[in-house]
């Protein structure tokens, strides 16, 4: 077993708010190998974005990493000084956001920003850096990159801007790229273009990719493995095909059933009742219990621990939807509709 490029263990992130201390991420562990793509799926408030920010060391007060460890290429990031983190950020770990303008400065030309990003971590001539920036733009599919280098971010369309952000993030061939819903605001055809480019780039450079999204269907096409988050915890993890075909956790099954799809036209979707819980008012047992059709008494009192299952899978559930191992694979989503 090789050491993973990104190794997150028992990560806990808390925020102090008016309603008291809120644990946004609670005991999250995952590991991603070089060239591997992991999908981090959850709804709003599940803690998926906070997890991504924590990997970059970007948790600002009132939030803080309360416990756990984040190792990139076996180097511990938790507890490092801001100065040390800055050396790692952009070089070993990079991030792209839903809004590319989070990382692009609107008053600087693209070339200035990209060259700066290279020279912050490496001693290279300005000319060499510029050439590398140009190549990076070409790789993400920006036409006539030499001219586009002289443009300002607002001269690009939304999709192009996101490509520039991706090219900038990948300039220093980071070991880990965290992508927080970078295609959610884009049109389908543009999303497909960007997905294909990111997929190719990460395969080429061996970058480990953590793709954060609420959209299971994006993960289905892109990721190798997936972690499903609910109320700050990873409730289910495993290889993407297995999780989507035979979910163990009722929440995962509910999410899959909620995706509108051709099989069920006009028939009501298998919905999850209730709302996403407020993190400040989590029930004592399983946070999903109030919405779960399978909940039993222990669910309401005892917090379920992470239980490993064969095939590199795991889930936190007292009443797992265990499909017997030898029966043919059933479409768990369809099973939910009568």
């Amino acid at each position, binding site marked *: 077993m090789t050491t993973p490029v990104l190794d997150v263990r028992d990560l806990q992130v808390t925020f102090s708010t008016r309603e008291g201390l809120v644990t946004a991420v609670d005991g999250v562990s995952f590991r991603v190998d070089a060239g591997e793509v992991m999908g981090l799926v959850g709804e709003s408030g599940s803690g998926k974005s906070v997890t991504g920010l924590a990997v970059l060391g970007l948790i600002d007060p009132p939030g803080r990493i309360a416990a756990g460890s984040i190792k990139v290429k076996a180097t511990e990031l938790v507890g490092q000084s801001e100065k040390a983190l800055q050396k790692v950020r952009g070089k070993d770990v990079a991030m792209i956001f839903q809004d590319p303008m989070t990382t692009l400065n609107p008053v600087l030309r693209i070339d200035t920003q990209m060259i700066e990003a290279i020279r912050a971590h490496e001693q290279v001539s300005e000319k060499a850096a510029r050439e590398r920036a140009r190549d990076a733009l070409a790789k993400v599919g920006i036409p006539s990159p030499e001219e586009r280098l002289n443009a300002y971010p607002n001269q690009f369309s939304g999709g192009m801007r996101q490509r520039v952000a991706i090219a900038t993030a990948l300039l220093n061939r980071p070991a880990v790229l965290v992508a927080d819903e970078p295609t959610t605001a884009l049109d389908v055809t543009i999303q497909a273009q960007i997905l*294909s*480019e990111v997929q190719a780039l990460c395969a080429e450079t061996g970058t480990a990719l953590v793709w954060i999204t*609420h*959209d299971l269907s994006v993960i289905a096409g892109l990721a190798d493995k997936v972690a499903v988050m609910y109320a700050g915890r990873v409730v289910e993890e495993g290889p993407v095909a297995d999780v989507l075909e035979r979910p163990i956790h009722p929440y995962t099954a509910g999410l899959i059933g*909620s*995706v509108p799809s051709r099989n069920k036209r006009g028939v009501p979707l298998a919905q999850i009742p209730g709302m996403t819980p407020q993190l400040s008012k989590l029930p004592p047992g399983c946070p999903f219990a109030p919405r779960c059709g399978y909940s039993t008494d222990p669910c309401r009192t005892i917090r379920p621990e992470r239980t490993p299952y064969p095939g590199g899978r795991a889930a936190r559930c007292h009443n797992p939807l265990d499909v017997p191992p030898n029966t043919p694979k059933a479409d768990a989503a369809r099973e939910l509709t009568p």
Partner: protein
Amino acid sequence: MNATMNADATAPAVKPILSLEHVHKRFVKSLDAAERVANLFGAGLQDQVVRAVDDVTLDIAPGEVVGLVGESGCGKSTLGRIIAGILDPSDGLVRFEGADVAKMNGADRRKADLAVQMIFQDPAASLNPRMRVVEIIGEAPVVHGLIAAEEMDAYVCGLMEKVGLDPATRRRYPHQFSGGQRARINIARALAVQPRVLVCDESTAALDVSIQAQVLNLFLELRRELNLTYVFVSHDLGVIEHIADRVAVMYLGRIVELAKTDEIFEAPNHPYTQALLEEVPRLEAKKRAFTALKGEIPSPLRPPPGCHFHPRCPHVFARCSVDRPGLKPIAESRLSACHLNDETAARPGRTRSAETVSMEAAQG
């Protein structure tokens, strides 16, 4: 194009509840004073015109669900607003139950306006933050005399129950509700004026997946219960596929394909529809390579000549950049606007062959 009373050949053969005939909508940004002065000195500035909706003809039969799909800038939201009566068309007719809406007198027009209601995209922004839920839902029916002022409370309670809200929360303000609940308030407000058609403009796009499913189920339930007609505007093909009977695919202001949902999803005819369907991420699709349609959506300020899609189309040929393809029947109750349908040679299928790629290269 056809002799029956329906201008739109794909609509069910009943009297349509709503029909659009050659509807256009242009947004003009005229020159301001300074720019006009600049023109006196020969700057040659011109008004900027966006043809948000460009010659759309569509019939909507009572009880059906019509999906309007397309990417940003395709005019689907503008068309939805024209249908809902929020915007007036620059050209063309909107008929409600056969009568031209623009020529109606005040009372009839109001009746027609109320009969078509809209559910908006942003459940928070579409609720007045300074009004209580009971006022938000109850205001319009009282103003229009559908109910007396003292009946409002009971009326609102009934509506809230119908959409799955707790009537005890009716004196709260919108910010005290979750996203899904706000979507339900929106629906209750629209239902309060007893509409016959609901125009849903990306109404579930801002919601979490599990909440989206709840709201979509509510739409289906209300359709059955109240015999509602829906126009569903969405960029999410999954939602459209789930809920729509008939789909209109739009690209830069024009409908490029109009057909029954099954037919469009099983055998898309227009190259744009094909591309769009191919690129939708699907749960069923396991890890795969994303094959991308080339190029960006052109600016609606300067749409390409001829067929708007031709610069991105893998099957483009000479005629496409000159002639605008008309929306023509290609099968029974199926329309598509593509010159390939006129060619005698067999159409290329869904997958791009080597031939078409080289053809594309030849066309530049």
